[in-house]
């Protein structure tokens, strides 16, 4: 099974381990993620202004890149890992699907490009795992006993909102829980798994992030969470950064944060793709 794959900038530096682990996991299940030959920044945040289409250009170029390469996979799917990228690409795609005039404007504007036909389907690696690998299959492949591992799934915003692009129920998503269960670990139910981490406020207003992170993780201590799994580089950064900012309030307590793909890689025994810090986190389950 082959899919086109859009990494996005974070996956190439800050969140390199997210990509490494994901690619290894994909490969393990016989999935080839073919990185787009040329890609550019998706735009990072989806512009909510509907009077202008030009904020969509970055994303549309990436979609055209994907369109050029669909022949290599035989399907129209474009897989993302970073949930920001997912939301931007999917939202742009959704908008263009519902606003032919916007699509026309963009196609006209980008006259040196081939026209975007609107046929690319943007999807997330989690969806691929659910729909093309299957949690049962994952359960069969698990190499490590993780029964004692208490995992707090953290969705953040971008995979589950807005409704139009949500990969699962916006209020009651289950996909991460199902994945965690399939690994034999215990998913913790807590109220804030889809609540915002503070996002880009971190740059201008650290307080917001600090408060948010404190709130999000507060039930996790009592729930004895061992780790938090995330789907987004920014969430990961904010959770870790927030815990650092709030170290006084937390009395230095911390909960390690890993990408879901790292947890998967670990469960599958793909230790060689995990970096030292991560392996350190999982050490007691080895």
């Amino acid at each position, binding site marked *: 099974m082959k899919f086109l794959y859009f990494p*996005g*900038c*974070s996956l190439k*530096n*800050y*969140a390199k381990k997210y990509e490494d682990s994901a690619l290894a996991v994909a490969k393990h299940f016989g999935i080839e993620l073919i990185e787009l030959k040329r890609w550019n*920044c998706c*735009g*990072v*945040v989806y*512009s*909510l*202004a*509907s*009077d202008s289409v030009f904020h969509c250009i970055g994303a549309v170029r990436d979609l055209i890149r994907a369109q050029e390469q669909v022949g290599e996979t035989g399907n129209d799917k474009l897989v993302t890992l*970073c949930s*920001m990228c997912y939301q931007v690409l999917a939202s742009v795609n959704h908008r263009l699907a519902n606003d032919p005039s916007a699509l026309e404007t963009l196609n006209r504007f980008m006259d040196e490009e081939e026209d975007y036909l609107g046929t690319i389907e943007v999807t997330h690696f989690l969806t691929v795992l659910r729909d093309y690998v299957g949690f049962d299959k994952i359960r069969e492949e698990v190499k490590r006993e993780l029964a004692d591992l208490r995992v707090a799934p953290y969705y953040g*915003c971008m995979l589950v*909102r*807005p*409704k139009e692009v949500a990969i699962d129920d*916006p*209020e009651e998503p289950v996909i991460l829980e199902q994945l965690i269960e399939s690994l034999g670990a215990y998913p913790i139910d807590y109220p804030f798994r889809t*609540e*915002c981490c*503070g*996002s*880009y*406020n*971190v*740059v*201008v*207003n650290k*307080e*917001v992030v600090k*408060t*948010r992170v404190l*709130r999000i993780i507060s039930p996790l201590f009592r729930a004895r969470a061992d780790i938090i799994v995330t789907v987004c*580089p*920014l969430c990961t*950064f*904010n959770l870790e950064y927030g815990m650092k900012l709030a170290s006084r309030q937390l009395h230095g307590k911390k909960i390690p944060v890993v990408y879901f793909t790292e947890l998967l890689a670990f469960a599958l025994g793909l230790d060689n793709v995990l970096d030292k810090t991560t392996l350190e986190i999982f050490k007691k389950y080895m």
Partner: protein
Amino acid sequence: MLIKISSELAKKVFEISGQNVYACYQCGKCSAGCPVVNEMDLLPNQVIHLVQIGDERVLNCKAIWICAACFTCSVRCPRDVDLAKVMEALRLLTLRKGIYKLDLRRIENVEEYPQIALIAATRKYTG
């Protein structure tokens, strides 16, 4: 003060966001669920109300810059007002004048942030 019904402001917001703020009946569900409301000087429903009555002071509030576009309000609104889009429109009313809310040169330890955070912030706080 004079209340401007069908305010110019609401019209501008509509133009930018496609959202009709008059659909809002001020139930407050947005404010109840907003994760960052503690940092805001106005509740989200108050932001809308100010737009409804055409009070331009709303352009100078902090709340619209705190909003992180997490869409919690948007998915729960009983009147289908996409408040995230309204917030964006209000930000753009400032940004499109060339007034930016971020100068990366002044950010301390800029190197410790991942790109995703910096670019996102740039997108939201500059034009």
